């Protein structure tokens, strides 16, 4: 059986939007002695497994990323196809 194709949608806060979670992680790194980093921004990703034989999936992925997976007011997204 062949494996279904997957797409990964990465959602991140837009530049300039405050990310208290990222800042807290950054402070933890400093506290742990890792001083090599300038900043941390947090985000999340979603793996979508695509049904075999589906056509024009790109626009669908774009649509669900805008409608559901991200909040366009504060977040941007990018898509990676894993063939």
């Amino acid at each position, binding site marked *: 059986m062949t494996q279904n194709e997957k797409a990964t949608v990465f959602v991140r806060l837009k530049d300039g*939007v*405050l990310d*208290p*979670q990222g800042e*807290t992680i950054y402070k933890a790194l400093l506290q742990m002695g890792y001083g090599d980093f300038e900043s941390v921004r947090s985000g999340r990703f979603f793996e979508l497994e695509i049904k075999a034989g589906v056509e024009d999936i790109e626009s669908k992925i774009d649509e669900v990323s805008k409608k*559901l*997976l991200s*909040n366009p*007011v*504060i977040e941007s997204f990018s898509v990676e196809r894993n063939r």
Partner: protein
Amino acid sequence: MKVGVVTFPGSNCDYDSYAAVKHILNEEVEFLWHKSTELKDSDLVILPGGFAYGDYLRAGAIARFSPIMEKVIEFAHSGGRVIGICNGFQVLTECGLLPGALMRNRHLRFSCKFVHLRVENSETDFTTACETGEVLKIPIAHGEGNFYHYDNDIKELEDNGQVAFRYCTPGGDITDAANPNGSINNIAGILNAQKNVLGMMPHPERAVEDILGSVDGLKLFESLRSSIGSSVKVGHP
């Protein structure tokens, strides 16, 4: 006034809202199930606090696609009055009935305490019983109440009188220390451009009896009753 209180899976302030309307205001109230598409002739729809759909993905993000919300959105577009409290506010921003977004509190903690709110616009159906500049004592209970919007859009909200409430000191001063979550311009509640939809993080339904520590939340419900009209006929058995 007939009130509909929406119950999503994970709502936990639906009974508080129901009780405030039924037992304190003595007005008609019904629950509206999230899978239903019937608003039961409500004059006012309340989206209550809680953690609809477990706050999965983002607070309010899944709830906005539930069947009842389609009707609530139609109702709001036709001028119906809708109030979203706490999680209900998050649902309203997610579904686009209100602008902006509610982000994680800047200190990352869940805040549960009384706060003071300054009434910024008393000329709305939600605030007629208040004076502009009046300070209300109402509790908050949220982890994601940090209101955010772009600078230009915030200016538009401010210019249009769409800011309903701001976090303030007991004396009514707008200070950073009085801001419990990092909201831009200390915003605690906003209205849509038509002013028939209100979203607020504080819980007016939890401040309706002396035993609860404040009765200031009643002013919102009384404002709505005087705008909509009472359906309770005085003098009839």
